[in-house]
């Protein structure tokens, strides 16, 4: 149930921010996927990633299956390196977030390029990765408070 709540929360926030020109650059889908992958166990995280990816494909008008594939891949990488990734310190979180974010962006555009899809590259996306992290921290705090008292996954 909690996963559905988080999923619809993600959709709702993405809907809200999309009306704002500046905030629409913030990728809340990725933020939520990153949060779920960092906080929950593999199975719910990978399913959440898959469906969030589908939603992202619909939302960003990317070829259907592109984001779901990348997010599923991201989930698996998280699963493989879970024990080696540190999320308790802000600096390590920042590093992880930036690396994963750029990797996802790189994968998205490189797959699109090699597949021959015409997807315009936005330089603002690189710049807004930093802002994404700020919003990730806000979302993280909010969701942790929301889920306080309960034990999920590695928490």
């Amino acid at each position, binding site marked *: 149930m909690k996963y559905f709540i988080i999923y619809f929360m993600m*959709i709702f926030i*993405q*809907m*809200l921010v*999309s*009306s704002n020109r500046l905030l*629409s650059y913030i990728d809340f889908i990725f933020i939520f996927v990153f949060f779920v992958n960092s906080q929950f166990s*593999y*199975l719910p995280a*990978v*399913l959440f990633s*898959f469906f969030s*990816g589908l*939603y992202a494909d*619909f*939302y960003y*008008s990317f*070829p*259907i*299956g*592109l984001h*779901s*594939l990348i997010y*599923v*891949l991201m*989930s*698996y990488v998280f*699963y493989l390196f879970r024990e080696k990734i540190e999320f308790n310190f802000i600096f390590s979180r920042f590093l992880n977030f930036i690396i994963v974010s750029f990797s996802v962006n790189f994968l998205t555009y490189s797959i699109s390029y090699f*597949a021959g899809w015409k997807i315009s590259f936005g330089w603002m996306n690189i710049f807004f990765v930093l802002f994404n992290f700020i919003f990730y921290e806000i979302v993280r705090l909010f969701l942790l408070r929301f889920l306080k008292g309960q034990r999920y996954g590695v928490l």
Partner: protein
Amino acid sequence: MEKKNKYIFYLLSSISFILLLLNLNSFVSEIKLILSFIFNPELTSQNIKDFSELSDRTKMIFECEKENSKLKKELSILKEKLVFYEPAFNENLKLKEILSTSLPSKIKGCYAYSISYNPYDPYSFFYINKGSKDEVKIYNPVIFFDNFKKRWRIIGRVVEVYPSYSKVMMITHLDFSFVVMTSKSKGLASSEGKGKIIYKYIEGDVSVGDEVLTADTSYTFPPFIYIGDISNVKKTSDVLFVKAELTTFNPKDIDAVYVIDWQPPILKEEL
């Protein structure tokens, strides 16, 4: 557990990959549009105003469609008309030019059109669209307006007359010969085929550029009608064998002609 996780990963990634390969974008574009309206309030809010005017706009689209089909029909009719208009306009220009030129005085007859010519030998004969109904008679000379020279020139004479059409033998026909003259000479013009007319048995002087006209003593054509210019002179020791070549016309240029109401005097006497 690890195996199960791997299988889930393989399953989900292969589903995603299949979705990518299927390239469903074209099929789900409409669903995407609806979903984008649902999930993207910016787009929705932008279009709320548009939706309020939706009925008016739809009405306008239908009206535009009607107007468009009507205009298309009109356009096709106008295009059809234009197909006939352009050749008619060109013909009108040509006829205007012909009519503006003054025919030699005392010449009477009728205008006619060339309707066909001998494709194997275009310099032999052609048919005109006027016949005995239009008072075209046998041996009537036929002239046409040379656009390059800007003057009337003789091209042949009627050899067969039918009620509504006639056959014209051209002066370039292989068997055709008649008496001609220049300002200083007189002789016989005879065709050698393929549009070549030779001026021979010349009495008097002849030089390149001389205008050749029908002779005043000719029984074939009325006198003083332009035939062509001398383009080449072949002089020999014997004056009798001096030959000159005449410039001729291109049969393809022959379109509107004038049939002169004239007959050879001998024929008139016979009749």
